[in-house]
């Protein structure tokens, strides 16, 4: 069976939800929906950062955070937050699906609002992805 992140409808859902996040939070500089191994499924404002690089780094950071939580017996890692002077990077898994939502907000945004926006986006994506079984047509899949 084809993975959700390779389905045409999955990409459409991802693109729509990222656009909604952008509308909800003008401080969103860049957002990307990624496979576990860092490939871009969908993104918004792709001209603002090197999206391939961002995806690879987000994938590594996600995996490292989950490894730390695992090693310390902390349970499942809910969020990854990188709070810097110029803004915040927030990452979280889309519940129930092998994809990561990673978003960069500028320093005009509060961390709480950024968390809320990301969580809402991830929950919306999860609900939409849940409707995709069985998976329809594929995009360039070799699986």
């Amino acid at each position, binding site marked *: 069976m084809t993975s959700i992140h390779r389905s045409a409808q999955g990409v459409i859902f991802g693109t729509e939800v990222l656009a909604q996040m952008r509308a909800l939070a003008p401080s969103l500089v860049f957002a990307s929906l990624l*496979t*576990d191994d*860092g*490939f871009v499924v969908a993104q918004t404002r792709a001209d603002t950062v090197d999206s391939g690089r961002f995806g690879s780094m987000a994938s*590594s*950071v*996600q*995996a490292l955070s989950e490894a730390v939580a695992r090693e310390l017996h902390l349970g499942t890692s809910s969020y990854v937050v990188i709070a810097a002077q110029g803004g915040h990077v927030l990452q979280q898994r889309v519940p129930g699906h092998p994809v990561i939502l990673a978003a960069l907000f500028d320093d005009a945004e509060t961390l709480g609002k950024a968390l809320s926006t990301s969580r809402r986006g991830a929950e919306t994506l999860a609900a939409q992805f849940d409707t995709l079984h069985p998976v329809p047509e594929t995009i360039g899949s070799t*699986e």
Partner: protein
Amino acid sequence: MEHVILFAGPMGAGKSTAIATLSDIEVVTTEAANTERHVVDKATTTVALDYGEITIGDEEKVRLYGVPGQSRFDFMWTILRERARGLVLLVNNDDVDPIASMLERLAPFEDLLRRRAVVIGVTRSDVAPRPSTADYAAAVSAAHPGVVLPILTVDARDLTRMRTLLLTLVSLVEAATELETDEVTA
């Protein structure tokens, strides 16, 4: 004494397996589902690092770090090589062009190469007997005149073979450290 040793090489060369074989502790892994199965047909791939430890003798601890094979994760190579004392470069002999792959993967670790703190392990030579270790040695000498590296065929699952490779590297690292110390004190 403690050593930090990196395991690098292309995706599918056996880096994670080698660390799991060698490590005295449960390995810390950062595996993710591999969506490039048309490139290398394996279910998961390392996206940040593998971490293991092995104690040699009574008190010589070696920290083993495996880096992702794909160049899109090269920022992890940069982060980890800054603390590395030596490099185990694994190359799978059934790669399309394993010698080119070896040379490409050596390039980011020029500092370690200059210190001669590098060993090369050729995996999957049971599947693809060519090129030979002599072919690899000739390629290293051609690309880096004057550099001679230990090059062994290994099975990443074979503890004895992997220990031989690692101990060879540790002896090189210690020799390089002694040489540098002598130069400073001279």
